[in-house]
């Protein structure tokens, strides 16, 4: 630049002003892009770390393990009483007390402290066990029962001696007792299978709350969505893309489908409430209604992705089929559809994944209900599809509204479970795409 003649002769070894400017712009753009990606990755990492750090502990659970002997008389008396689980609770508490005293673990803790360690759910569990296996009555068996949620929290670091001091539901003496029992092997931490099999539990018993009904409900809903949305969506797209004559009506339909994909999902919930529950009088909070609502919501997604993949098939394939005398339908079903299948399946699975994580429309059709028991198939003519159930995202929503911090852990655990389901579905979509992809 100092040498005027050099800039005029424009050597290739020096960048001229214009090139410098262009290169700088390019570098800036790359930096923006990189920055955006780094930011997004950082957010993702923060999200995952916070969810995993909150929720990973929900896959472990603290149990109390001690020997209990329940005689036939006690069993009969308990079954004869009005508050059956109350009677079992007393048996468990006395058994625990005698176990603690014989092993000299009680220390300065009171009897109430000791019985406070046991989860309110434990008595029902024991009763269920006894009803199922009558032969254990009268023998000494090692019961492994749920510990109270606070005790569980103590071993997971959620409850400390400081919080225990201001918490009316747990005392320092109980924590000391828990420590002694752990040393003695009476308090153990195991993988929490019940998190995946138990139904929801009351606000008082976070330790017993599980995702069983929610997973079941979600699976049933996905089955409904898959069985309805895939055939309807694919048939609609094939008709619109391959058979329908282009006219203003198809244009209107096309615009409307695109708009429907953008309609807030809660609107579908209102629609479902009006049509399926109020008009068709289907059982509210049932997977059938949930599935129908999610089908409505997923259809535009499936139609749009199916049409896109049908469009991407070169017209030369259609010509080739028609040219050898195939009918329109043969050309579509023998040639176009198999080639479009990977795209259609990917779109469908992404639509399903979206439906799996959808909460808002389900709230409006009553799937937010507290479901304490597994649905019983025989009480509805629609089987399990017509029974009150819940769904994974709604269960998360439900748990996050509860005040006990133990439910934050449960909710995070449920989020991890939901994310794993989504990951599996997406991996399956990628697998299908790779498997059926054909090149020409």
């Amino acid at each position: 630049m100092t040498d005027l003649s050099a800039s005029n002769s424009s050597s290739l070894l020096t960048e001229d002003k214009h090139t410098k400017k262009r290169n700088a712009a390019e570098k800036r753009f790359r930096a923006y892009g990189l920055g955006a990606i780094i930011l997004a990755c950082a957010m993702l990492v923060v999200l995952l770390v916070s969810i995993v750090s909150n929720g990973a502990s929900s896959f472990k659970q603290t149990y109390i393990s001690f020997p209990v002997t329940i005689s036939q008389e006690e069993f009969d008396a308990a079954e004869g009483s009005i508050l059956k689980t109350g009677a079992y609770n007393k048996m468990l508490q006395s058994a625990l007390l005698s176990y603690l005293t014989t092993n000299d673990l009680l220390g300065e803790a009171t009897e109430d402290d000791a019985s406070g360690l046991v989860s309110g759910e434990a008595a029902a569990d024991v009763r269920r066990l006894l009803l199922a296996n009558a032969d254990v009555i009268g023998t000494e068996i090692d019961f492994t029962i749920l510990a109270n949620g606070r005790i569980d929290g103590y071993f997971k670091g959620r409850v400390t001696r400081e919080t225990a001091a201001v918490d009316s539901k747990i005392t320092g003496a109980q924590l000391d007792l828990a420590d002694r029992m752990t040393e003695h092997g009476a308090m153990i931490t195991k993988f929490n299978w019940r998190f995946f099999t138990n139904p929801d539990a009351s606000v008082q018993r976070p330790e017993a709350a599980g995702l069983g009904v929610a997973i079941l409900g979600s699976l049933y809903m996905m089955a409904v969505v898959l069985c309805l949305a895939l055939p309807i969506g694919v048939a609609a797209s094939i008709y619109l893309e391959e058979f329908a004559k282009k006219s203003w009506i198809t244009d209107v339909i096309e615009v409307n489908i695109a708009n429907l994909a953008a309609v807030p999902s809660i609107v579908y919930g209102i629609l479902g409430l009006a049509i399926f529950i109020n008009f068709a009088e289907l059982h509210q909070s049932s997977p059938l209604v949930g599935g129908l609502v999610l089908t409505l919501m997923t259809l535009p997604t499936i139609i749009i992705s199916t049409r896109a993949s049908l469009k991407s098939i070169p017209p030369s394939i259609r010509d080739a089929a028609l040219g050898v005398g195939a009918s329109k339908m043969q050309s579509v079903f023998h040639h176009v559809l198999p080639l479009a299948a990977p795209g259609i399946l990917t779109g469908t699975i992404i639509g399903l994944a979206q439906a799996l994580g959808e909460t808002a429309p389900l709230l409006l059709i009553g799937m937010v209900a507290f479901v304490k028991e597994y649905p019983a198939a025989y009480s509805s003519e629609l089987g399990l599809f017509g029974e009150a159930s819940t769904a994974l995202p709604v269960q998360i929503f439900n748990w996050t509204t509860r005040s006990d911090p133990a439910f934050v852990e449960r909710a995070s655990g449920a989020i991890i479970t939901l994310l794993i389901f989504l990951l599996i579905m997406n991996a399956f979509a990628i697998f299908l795409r790779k498997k059926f992809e054909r090149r020409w």
Partner: protein
Amino acid sequence: MNAVNRIERPVNMNDIKIAAKGVQVYYADTHAIKDVNVEIEDKTVTAFIGPSGCGKSTFLRTLNRMNDTIDICRVTGDIRIDGEDIYDPKVDPVQLRAKVGMVFQKPNPFPKSIYDNVAYGPKIHGLARNKADLDEIVEKALRRGAIWDEVKDRLHAPGTGLSGGQQQRLCIARAVATEPEVLLMDEPCSALDPIATAQVEELIDELRQRYSVVIVTHSMQQAARVSQKTAFFHLGNLVEFGETDKIFTNPEDPRTESYISGRIG
């Protein structure tokens, strides 16, 4: 059996296979083909030449009603194959296309095996009673497509894995597998290299023994090499139609002469 009788007839007494009278084609408001009258003979190669956009491909596609697939396209006039009006409401275009095969500009084998490519037409038309029948049809078609020797050891390899020229010959084999009477070819060599082009041209000459071949081409040399009759299209009009030798050596219309000598096009 019919084929044998036909071959025995002298070449210069060919019947009229396709007779088109007053054909008009409109794309929405565009008048693409203007009042075309042409008679295409059996066992003859007829070439359609003309500059791009002159309507020769459009006209070719009216002969097996491939234009039906285009919503905005409208065809009027009278096109008869063996005296039957192919635009009669009673005619099923699917049956017509089995009789009038087509080969496209770009080789477009199905992304399936070579065997399946050829077997597809006979299968959907129910031409084979069993597997052995089908094998025979496939072999015969591949032989007529002059590609049998190259692919006989890999019939179950994908058709899309062949070279461009092989793919085009496979497409020709696929077209002849349904035993058509007329073979329409829409610029079959435009995507091929000179060697593959020569092979396909040789094949076209052989196909003349059995079929009435109509070929659209951009290459005047090709038209001169393979065809006996040539039609020159310009701006949607059929300008001149006659013996290929005459069109190329002594055209009647000044537009034909200009095109052939390279002044328009």
